[in-house]
């Protein structure tokens, strides 16, 4: 830990992963590029839990984000010798198995003595669903209001989003690698701030500041120049982009910065773009710990590639936790073909009509068919206006439905168009499309009182 020029303590939390699949280089670069106290790694998106649940069903030692093992190996010297602590929701649906894998890596590298793994569990509600429904918790879909009983036999995973408290406990028991399941993304950053500064669990403004610090860096480089529309042509050296770091202060204010000699850009516009990302009602960003008010954020430039956030207000949370439920929802397949100039778009349109007629003639049943013309209207629809003689257009044709055999049959109907449909067609080297099972997301709420978290610190 270090202090600022007035002698106040500062805590530095580096974001090293914005989702499972993010840049493998980032965690190591974050601990080697300069001094940091914590490394925060966010692996879980809405449907990730169900993918992990399927993996665990096949092998009880699986069900966690396996990228995390490599990430830890790449930062082990910093953790073992320099005291950097790691917090990650990499545990997925199997935090104990994830901890075992991490212990294995520590042993292999001869640093077992220097590693204390904190494991947070209790978010997994899958074994308790029937008990909860019977006890009067309908786990109704937050968007449609439907009771979970309507899809009960198709549920694959169910996890409560848990807050910062168990992570704070693991840190207070000296864990230097904390592994959680479905904790909120923001708790991974808020917990070390709360722990280091000793913020009370009802100090709403400071807790809200910690949540917004977490929101700012939870998507990795998306606040430091990545995916930044503002003045994008002038953002330097994206190949060497620096991931963001929170420099937290005891009063709740914090600075977002990145290591020197890295690319990208941290500016008021780049941070603002991330603040509004995936935003609902900005007055009420609801988390298990606190409700944060995004309309109270003050933002100011604080030097080159430094932006300061302060003045953030919060208020008490609700008595519910959000639950992320995943269920089987049929099958889908998407296939593509590319049509070239001249008349690329009319050719693709004719191919679409021919394909629809053939599917119809075969009597195949789908819940939904979608055609997109990539290069014409796929991303902006009719807002894009009329195309102006494009050099090529990709026909992108998708179907979804409950009947797997019908989806399979569809995948055989795309490629024949190469020889028996409109001319000047290519781009079919991938062969026929793959049938995918759809695992859909069912957001619900549950009373906080029914979820008990547990912290174990392994030495």
């Amino acid at each position, binding site marked *: 830990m270090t202090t600022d020029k007035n002698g106040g303590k500062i805590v530095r939390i580096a974001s090293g992963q914005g989702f499972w699949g993010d840049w493998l280089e980032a965690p190591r670069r974050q601990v080697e590029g300069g001094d940091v106290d914590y490394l925060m790694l966010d692996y879980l998106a*809405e*449907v990730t839990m169900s993918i992990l649940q399927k993996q665990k069903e096949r092998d009880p030692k699986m069900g966690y984000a396996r990228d995390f093992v490599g990430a830890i190996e790449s930062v082990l010297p910093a953790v073992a010798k320099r005291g950097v602590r790691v917090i990650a929701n990499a545990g997925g649906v199997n935090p104990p198995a994830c901890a075992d894998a991490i212990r294995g890596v520590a042993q292999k590298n001869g640093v077992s003595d220097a590693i204390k793994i904190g494991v947070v569990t209790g978010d997994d509600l899958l074994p308790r669903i029937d008990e909860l429904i019977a006890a009067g918790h309908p786990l109704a879909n937050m*968007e449609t209001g439907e009771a979970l009983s309507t899809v009960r036999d198709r549920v694959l995973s169910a996890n409560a989003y848990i807050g910062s408290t168990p992570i704070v406990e693991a840190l207070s028991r000296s864990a230097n690698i904390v592994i959680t399941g479905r904790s909120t993304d923001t708790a991974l950053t808020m917990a070390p701030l709360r722990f280091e500064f000793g913020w009370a669990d009802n100090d709403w403004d400071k807790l809200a500041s910690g949540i917004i610090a977490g929101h700012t860096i939870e998507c990795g480089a998306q606040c430091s120049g990545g*995916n930044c*529309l*503002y003045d994008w042509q002038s953002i330097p050296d994206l190949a060497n982009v620096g991931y963001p770091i929170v420099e937290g202060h005891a009063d709740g204010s914090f600075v977002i910065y990145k290591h020197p000699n890295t690319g990208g850009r941290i500016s008021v*516009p780049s941070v*603002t*773009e*991330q*603040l*509004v*990302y*995936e*935003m*609902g*009602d*900005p*007055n009420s960003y609801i988390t298990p710990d606190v409700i944060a008010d*995004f*309309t*109270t*954020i*003050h*933002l100011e430039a604080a030097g080159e590639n430094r932006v300061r956030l302060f003045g953030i207000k919060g208020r008490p949370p609700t008595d519910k936790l959000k639950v992320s439920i995943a269920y089987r*929802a049929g099958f*889908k397949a*998407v296939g593509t073909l590319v049509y070239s100039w001249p008349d690329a778009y009319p050719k693709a349109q004719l191919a679409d009509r021919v394909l629809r007629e053939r599917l119809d003639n075969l009597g195949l049943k789908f819940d*939904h068919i*979608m055609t*997109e013309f*990539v290069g014409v209207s*796929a*991303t*902006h*629809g*009719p*807002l*894009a206006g009329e195309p*102006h003689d494009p050099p090529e257009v990709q026909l*992108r044709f*998708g*179907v*979804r439905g409950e009947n797997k055999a019908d989806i399979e049959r569809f995948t055989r109907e795309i490629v024949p168009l190469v020889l028996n449909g409109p001319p000047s067609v290519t781009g079919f080297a991938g062969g026929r499309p793959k049938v995918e099972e*759809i*695992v*859909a*997301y069912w*957001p619900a709420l549950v009373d906080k009182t029914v979820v008990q978290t547990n912290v174990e610190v392994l030495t």
Partner: protein
Amino acid sequence: MKVRLLDVAHARSGDKGDTANVGLIALKPEWFPFLQKYVTLDRVGAHFKDVITGPVERYELPNLNALNFLLHGALDGGGTLSLKTDAQGKVFSTAMLRMVLDVPDGEATALKLPALKLPDRQ
């Protein structure tokens, strides 16, 4: 005078289920009141009427010189259900920036708003 949002704002979008959000941010702080006045719920609803199936919600963040819009029924069911290229609503932001507004000349000049330049097609 015609003013295109792309020339006065930047934006980012994301998803929550079948809803896309678009955060619209003024390129200059002094242009935020202009966005507040002209980028109304009705105007955005009309802009996206052939693209989304549900209603629109609008929120103001004057502290960030930003507006936030929730576009419901935007993502063909959303997440893994969606058959769309943009299943997660990542580029609804740029679709929003296509919006062209009619602004009285005096008002546009006072704010130094850039006029829309129509491209030469032929």
